[in-house]
């Protein structure tokens, strides 16, 4: 990989990696650090990386960096901080997008990553398995469980509303 090819990868994939990490961590500075670390690692190993596989390489490195960051800091609160009553009493308009965002934060880091990799980047089960070190069947099962949880949470909300 030449310098020009590396810079082309920055233009093509930096936003996607940043978005993916930011959605998971909900912290811009941490996401920026992880993305920068991923690109630095790709620069160091540029002699063994081709441009066609640079995207999956970046997401793989960023994902593992994110998991390590979560385990160290445990910033993400997985506990439900919202009560159903409060939601109804405040009379929040059923903004599905916002609810989905909230529901997404209720998922585990792995489930969240699977959903985002599938919806944001359009990876297949096999590609997601390569990034997260899972096989395709595991990705399918975990992803379906995550969507059912989202459906259950949003469904309850819609029923209430």
């Amino acid at each position: 990989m030449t310098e020009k090819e590396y810079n082309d990868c920055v233009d093509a994939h930096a936003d996607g990696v940043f978005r993916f990490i930011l959605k998971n961590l909900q912290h811009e500075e941490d996401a920026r650090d992880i993305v920068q670390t991923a690109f630095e690692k790709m620069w160091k190993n540029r002699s063994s990386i081709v441009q066609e596989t640079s995207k999956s390489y970046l997401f793989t490195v960023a994902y593992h960096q994110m998991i390590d960051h979560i385990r160290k800091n445990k910033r993400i609160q997985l506990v439900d901080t919202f009560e159903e009553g409060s939601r109804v009493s405040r009379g929040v308009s059923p903004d599905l997008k916002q609810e989905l965002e909230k529901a997404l934060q209720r998922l585990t880091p792995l489930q969240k990553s699977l959903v985002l990799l599938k919806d944001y980047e359009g990876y297949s089960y096999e590609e997601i398995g390569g990034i997260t070190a899972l096989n395709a069947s595991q990705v399918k099962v975990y992803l379906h469980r995550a969507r059912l949880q989202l459906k259950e949470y949003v469904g309850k909300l819609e029923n209430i509303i």
Partner: protein
Amino acid sequence: MINLLNYETFFLLYADGELSPAEQESVLEFVQQHPSLEEEFSLFCRLKFNPGKDLVKMDTSILKKEIKEDLETLYAFEPDLSITCPNKSALYKKEKGAIVYGFRMFAAAAAILFTAGILWLVMGEKQQDASIVQLAIPVQQKKPMSSNPEDAFVSAIGVRESNIQNATEIQQAGHKPNAVKAIAAAVLPSLIASTVANTAALQQDVQKENAGLQIGEDEERNQINIDASKASIIDASAKPTPRGNLSEATLVAAAERMAINAVPMSSEPNAAVLINAALKTEKKSALSSLIRIINRRLLNEQEPPADKKFIQVANFYIPVNK
């Protein structure tokens, strides 16, 4: 095939986009056939996250690397082949191989001639007069060992003198070692009986003679200087007259050794050892004499005077059969 037991899985696969176009058609038909499931199907389709446009974007300028210019490619020069060196012919040099080659040929020819000369001389020595001078080697009667050491010295010296005289005559006649063997078979027993002196001293003499006459003579002179009393006894009793080119000191030293080691032998000396030693001495003396002749001729040396001519001390020639 989608049915009421597995429709949820198909709805999720449809939402993930993992179904083929035919399978998607079947799912849509199933939903149309079951209107109660339409709301659930739509919910699955809406539970998808789309990348928002209002998300914060990362500053990618800190990620990019500066592209370094390839200086070797941008600032490269090509040689101008139109420029040539003037008077190139004046720079040529001739190799000195002819002179070296001629010298080597001369040296090789000289080496070949030298080797041929050596071989001619050696072959001439071998093809020398085959007739052996039949010299009667005097049979020395065994004299009884007396207690008087002076008598023992005299007898030992007498035996040595006769043996040295015979050895000189045989060498001058140019006898061949192989022809001497025949004579040795006839006179060997009597010769052994005549040697009363210590056989060990004789073997030592043979070994010293093989090493070189000069060294042996120096050692003999040293021994004479150390023990003057023994020399006076020998002079008073025997007064050996030098035979051939032997010096008086040489004879004194030889007699001294024999007197010191004058121990009666319990067994007869090993004749085979003596014969072999004599043969080896004979061969080496012929070769050494040849080398001396060549060295004198090459170096234009003069022949040494007769009184200072080197000769092996106490070297007796035993004629043996070939």
